[in-house]
Every structure is written in structure tokens, then in C-alpha cells.
């Protein structure tokens, strides 16, 4: 219908057009119709009553499955890729200009905490696990998550004491994904090498909390990488602080017992006071010791990006938790462990 002179309306018929970038189609222009007596009543009552119901579209299950297939981004190894959509480095500064007074909460920030009842062997839960290690002759637990290749991500204080000494490294470190009630459905994965931010290593709590991030490279097990067995979470950095996270971990200090995976949903509440900008992010949470190093997951259930870790709290504020802000420092640590075999 390219010849406009043969169109049905006063404007001439336009060829149906498709917006190539947005995927929308349009009809030819519809001319305004009028009745002989000039009224707006184009349909008579009889015509309206005689109108046949338009058939509801019917499709079979195969069509539906095909249409609803999620679009997952895979990398060469077949899992969820890092992506993380790193916005510009100055995104944080831009946020300050536009949202400086629009976000955040006063203590206690709102949160919803519950025990995970979904089988832990389902992805992405199975990429999260419990971390066992020894330090100073004692046995401790933290939490961690698989981030691809042979690597896991956790808190710096779980892997090193922050005492500026080689004696501060944890020993006999094992990651137990999907741990539940003493059961290890995917076994124990021994650490090969540990990494923390140098700032944490040297200064610990006094000046290193803003970089309380740690990671480990694990030995293969039966010839397979951890990521081949349990999958891995993506990784996001340099995102705006105004986010909603699902925190995970195995809190073991009272009132928890460390036997189950606990979830906590919360949004950015306020900044911590330590470190240089960007300062740590505070959220509402009542998770306790043992949850340290558990991931703050952005876009949980769809993209599953690690965007924080359970790090520290304040003495008289039992309903809050802080994570280092994940910027290029967090990504640097991520790159270091992801590239090692």
C-alpha cells in the first residue's frame, strides 16, 4: 500500500510501519468517520448487540514455553556471566546530586529476615555456602559464595586477622556449598590460596574496614571446578548505593545456630563512618556472627550479582549490618581470584 492516492482515509493510507529500534507496529492513519445526520453514534444498538465475541487466542504449551524462555546471558563456561553493568565511575557522584535527600532510613532500617526453605541444592542457593577455617588453634565459621572459575568471595576478616602479619592468615579453609544441618551435599572444597585487600591486611578494624573483602581460590574436586558443580553468582560494582539487596549467610551466634541458610532483604539505609568515600553501606539486618562474608545479592532470582558482603556492625545497634561499597577495589580482588587456577 505504498500508493498514498489509493488510501481509504483523508490522510491517505500509510503503509504499516515498524519502529525498528522499539519493535512497535502501527496501522495506516484511520480517518474520522461521520454519520449522515452528523451524530457521533456510529454503532446502532442493534449492531452492538449483534457483534460476535472476538475469539480468545489459544496457544499450546509448547508455544508458551518457547515464548517464556528466559533470556540468560551465558559466558563460555555456560553460567551466568559477570556482567554487572558497571556504570560510569562517577555514577556515585551523580547520585549525590540528584538523590542526596531522597533515599535512606534512620536506624533501624527496614528489613525482612527469614530462613530459606527452598532446597539449597537449587541454583542460585547452592552457590552460597558455609566457610570453615582455623585461626589461633580454634575452629571458626563464616559464609561465602561461588563467583566463577575456582573462586569464592567472602569478607576479609574471615580470611585474615587484619594484623599486618603472615600469621594472620586462616588455615585449613574449606567451603561447603548448600550446607544444611551438618550435611554437605556437594562436599568440602579446600582453599588453595587466600586473598584480601592489602588495606585490610595491614590495618584490620582500625582503618581497613572499608575494604573488608576477601576471596579464595579453591582446589578442584574430582577434576571439577567449584563453579562447574554449583554454578556461580555474577558480580556488580560501581553501582548506585540506592539498591535493594538479598543478604545471605549462616549466622551462628545467638539466636541462630548456623545450621540453616538465612535470607535478609533490605535496602540502603545510611553510610558507615569509616574509610574514605565511598563509605560502607548500612542496611537493616539482625544477622549475627557466622554470617560474615555472606553475599549481598543484587537482582536476586534474575541476575544474581554479588554487590556486597556481610562485614561489620555497631555495638548498640543489633539491627543493622554494613558492607564495603563495591567499587573498583572489589572488582580488582574479584579479577585476581577469577583468573587463577
Amino acid at each position, binding site marked *: 500500500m505504498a500508493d498514498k492516492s489509493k488510501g481509504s482515509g483523508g490522510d491517505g493510507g500509510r503503509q504499516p510501519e515498524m519502529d525498528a529500534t522499539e519493535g512497535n507496529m502501527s496501522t495506516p492513519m484511520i480517518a474520522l468517520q461521520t454519520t449522515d445526520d452528523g451524530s457521533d453514534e456510529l454503532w446502532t444498538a442493534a449492531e452492538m448487540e449483534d457483534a460476535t465475541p472476538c475469539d480468545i487466542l489459544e496457544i499450546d504449551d509448547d508455544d508458551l514455553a518457547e515464548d517464556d524462555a528466559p533470556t540468560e546471558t551465558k559466558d563460555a563456561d555456560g553460567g551466568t556471566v559477570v556482567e554487572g553493568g558497571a556504570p560510569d565511575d562517577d555514577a556515585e557522584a551523580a547520585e549525590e546530586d540528584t538523590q542526596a535527600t531522597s533515599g535512606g532510613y534512620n536506624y533501624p532500617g527496614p528489613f525482612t529476615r527469614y530462613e530459606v526453605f527452598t532446597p539449597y541444592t537449587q541454583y542460585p542457593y547452592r552457590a552460597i555456602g558455609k566457610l570453615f577455617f582455623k585461626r589461633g588453634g580454634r575452629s571458626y565459621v563464616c559464609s561465602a559464595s561461588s563467583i566463577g572459575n575456582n573462586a569464592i568471595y567472602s569478607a576479609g576478616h574471615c580470611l585474615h586477622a587484619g594484623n599486618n602479619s603472615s600469621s594472620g592468615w586462616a588455615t585449613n579453609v574449606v567451603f561447603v556449598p548448600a550446607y544444611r544441618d551438618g550435611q554437605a551435599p556437594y562436599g568440602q572444597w579446600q582453599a588453595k590460596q587466600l586473598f584480601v585487600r592489602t588495606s585490610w591486611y595491614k590495618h584490620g578494624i582500625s582503618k581497613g574496614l572499608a575494604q573488608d573483602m576477601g576471596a579464595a581460590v579453591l582446589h578442584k574436586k574430582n577434576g571439577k571446578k567449584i563453579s562447574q558443580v554449583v554454578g556461580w553468582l555474577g558480580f556488580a560494582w560501581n553501582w548506585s548505593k540506592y539498591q535493594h539487596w538479598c543478604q545471605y549467610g549462616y549466622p551462628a551466634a545467638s539466636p541462630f545456630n548456623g545450621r540453616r541458610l538465612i535470607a535478609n532483604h533490605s535496602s540502603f539505609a545510611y*553510610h558507615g563512618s569509616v574509610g574514605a568515600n565511598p563509605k560502607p553501606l548500612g542496611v537493616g539486618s539482625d544477622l549475627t556472627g557466622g554470617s560474615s562474608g555472606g553475599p549481598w545479592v543484587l537482582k536476586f532470582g534474575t541476575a544474581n550479582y554479588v554487590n556486597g558482603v556481610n562485614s561489620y556492625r555497631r555495638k548498640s545497634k543489633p539491627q543493622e549490618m554494613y558492607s564495603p561499597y563495591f567499587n573498583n577495589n572489589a572488582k580488582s580482588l574479584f579479577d*585476581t581470584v577469577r583468573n587463577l587456577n
Partner: protein
Amino acid sequence: MQDRKGNKGSPDQTKEKPWTKEEMEEAEPLPMPTLDDEDETKEPKKKK
């Protein structure tokens, strides 16, 4: 081992025997770093 991007690595970990179920259940939660109360503000002061 320390790289130029501010990461510090441990020596290779010594392989040890796996943890027993009892050892795992008896392991203590690592105390979470806890700061004395500070004057936290809802938002940082905006730079001028």
C-alpha cells in the same frame, strides 16, 4: 604476595584432612567486627 592493585595473597594453603561432621558443628562463629557507637548520619554532608 601483593599486587599493584592493593590485593594481598597468602602462601599456598597446606592440604589437610577434611573436617569431620563433629568438627564442623563445633566450630564457633567468627566474631563480627563491631565498632563502638558513632555518630552515624543518615546521609553524608553534601560537598559544596
